[in-house]
């Protein structure tokens, strides 16, 4: 369909509904190769859902999402799994296997997909762990890790099969400022050093904007603003301003839809 070789992920007229609720309506979005693209929006707007649409875990109600021109959700299981090796995903929770230690967690993709010798596996795992600064933590169990460490281990694991696209789901949520800074650095460094394309889904505005090349702001199922960080901070659309400045009420209402307050109390 699209011919621009610079575009890795493209959403065309994408709509998605879940239990009769329209989560996305008619979204068009492009993610360029080699860039860090951020998708921001308030909680519950469907940022995680969007990542699942990219990775083919969910199927759009209409329109399409393509990765390198391929619609993952239309693939058969075997091809889907082949395509997914090109995609690394960092889950909000880290999603480390609780019964395996750090080393085995990172080694998991290799053990499943390759027949490498034990020495080779060891070397490759240590290289990835070194890249996230946790070579010394290889014998710890996931329950012994702090939130930031767990995310870095998960990052090493997601990078194990050398993907070209990395999806980060809320990588900074609930982290202290030091950890946050470290994760930011890491994402940026990895993106450059490994020639990745990164998609960061987040509601931490300032932090994400500091490393993103391009930002989409989603609210109410639509893209309400997009551009480079500078362009966005000069954007005057009410919803964008409200989100970027963290105002509690405005175009995105504080109240969940309800009937009239007075009427409700008196009924």
């Amino acid at each position, binding site marked *: 369909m699209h011919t621009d070789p610079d575009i890795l992920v493209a959403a065309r007229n994408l709509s998605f509904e879940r239990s009769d609720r329209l989560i996305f309506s008619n979204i068009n979005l492009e993610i360029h190769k080699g860039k860090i693209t951020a998708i921001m929006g308030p909680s519950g707007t469907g940022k995680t859902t969007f990542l699942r649409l990219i*990775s083919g*875990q969910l199927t759009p109600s209409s329109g399409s999402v393509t990765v390198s021109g391929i619609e993952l959700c239309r693939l058969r*299981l075997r091809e889907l*799994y*082949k395509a*997914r*090796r090109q*995609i*690394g*995903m960092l*889950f*909000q*929770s880290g*999603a*480390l*296997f*609780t019964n395996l230690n750090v080393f085995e967690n990172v080694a*998991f*993709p290799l053990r*499943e*997909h390759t027949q490498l010798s034990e020495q080779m596996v060891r070397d490759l795992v240590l290289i990835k762990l070194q890249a996230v600064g946790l070579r010394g933590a290889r014998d710890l169990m996931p329950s012994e890790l702090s939130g930031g460490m767990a995310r870095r281990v*998960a990052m090493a*694991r*997601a990078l194990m*099969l050398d993907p070209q696209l990395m999806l980060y789901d809320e990588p900074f949520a609930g982290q202290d400022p030091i950890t946050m800074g470290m994760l930011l650095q890491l994402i940026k460094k990895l993106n450059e050093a490994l020639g990745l394309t990164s998609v960061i889904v987040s509601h931490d505005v300032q932090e994400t904007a500091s490393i993103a090349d391009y930002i989409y702001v989603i609210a109410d199922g639509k893209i309400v603003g997009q551009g480079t960080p500078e362009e966005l901070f000069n954007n005057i659309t009410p919803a964008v301003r409200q989100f970027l400045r963290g105002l509690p009420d405005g175009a995105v209402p504080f109240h969940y839809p309800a009937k009239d307050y007075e009427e409700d109390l008196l009924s």
Partner: protein
Amino acid sequence: MIDKIQALGHAGLTICQHLGLSGIFLFKTLARRPRPGEGFKLLREQIYTVGVLSLLIILVSSLFIGMVIGLQGYNTLQRFGAEQELGQLLALSVTRELGPVVTALLFAGRAGTALTAEIGLMRATDQLESMEMMAVDPLWRIISPRFWAGFISMPLLAMIFNMGAIYGGYLVGVQWLGIDAGSFWSNMQAAVTFRMDVMNGLIKSLVFGFVVTWIAVYQGYFTVPNAAGISSATTKTVVYSSLAILALDFVLTSMMLKGW
């Protein structure tokens, strides 16, 4: 009135939907053939956690149940002067009914809940999804070995239960209450047939193993991904498994007694 009919219809549809979904789930799981080598290693690990770790509760329960049957049977049979028949009573009730049924109920409580909770936790913490994202099929990697482990373990556990219960009855009847050991064993040997009693009991426990493990992994895999979801899935595993075991036992028994 209309509301009630509607609710009934809705409940009926929901049940059908679950049955269909669990059927598809089972089919997909069974369609994943265990790859030799790695698959065997996964299966062996699961037979250990599902089967071997259930051994203790099965053994202890079987001893006590055998001992209770020994006591009760002796007291009743003695009134007719037929206490020599204790071996027969014990072996028949254990191999035909108690062995498969009680083993399955204990298995559902011990291993079934553990399976549901483990898989449910993996679901709630995105471990299953992250596996899919690493292009590893959780049905193959997680569900299939657990399912086969349950299916294989149950009949073995039931046989161990049978032996434990008979030994328990022997302890009480022969060692304690003083029935003649020779008549205890020879009456038992004369009364129990391999085909009708032992085999039928094994067939039952194969069916129970299949159903209990199916329910357990299904409940785990489709857990509502949060803490409340895991606890309710675990409860459902025990309730549905127990009901299924007892209902199927009736069906199977009637089929077996009528000669299929």
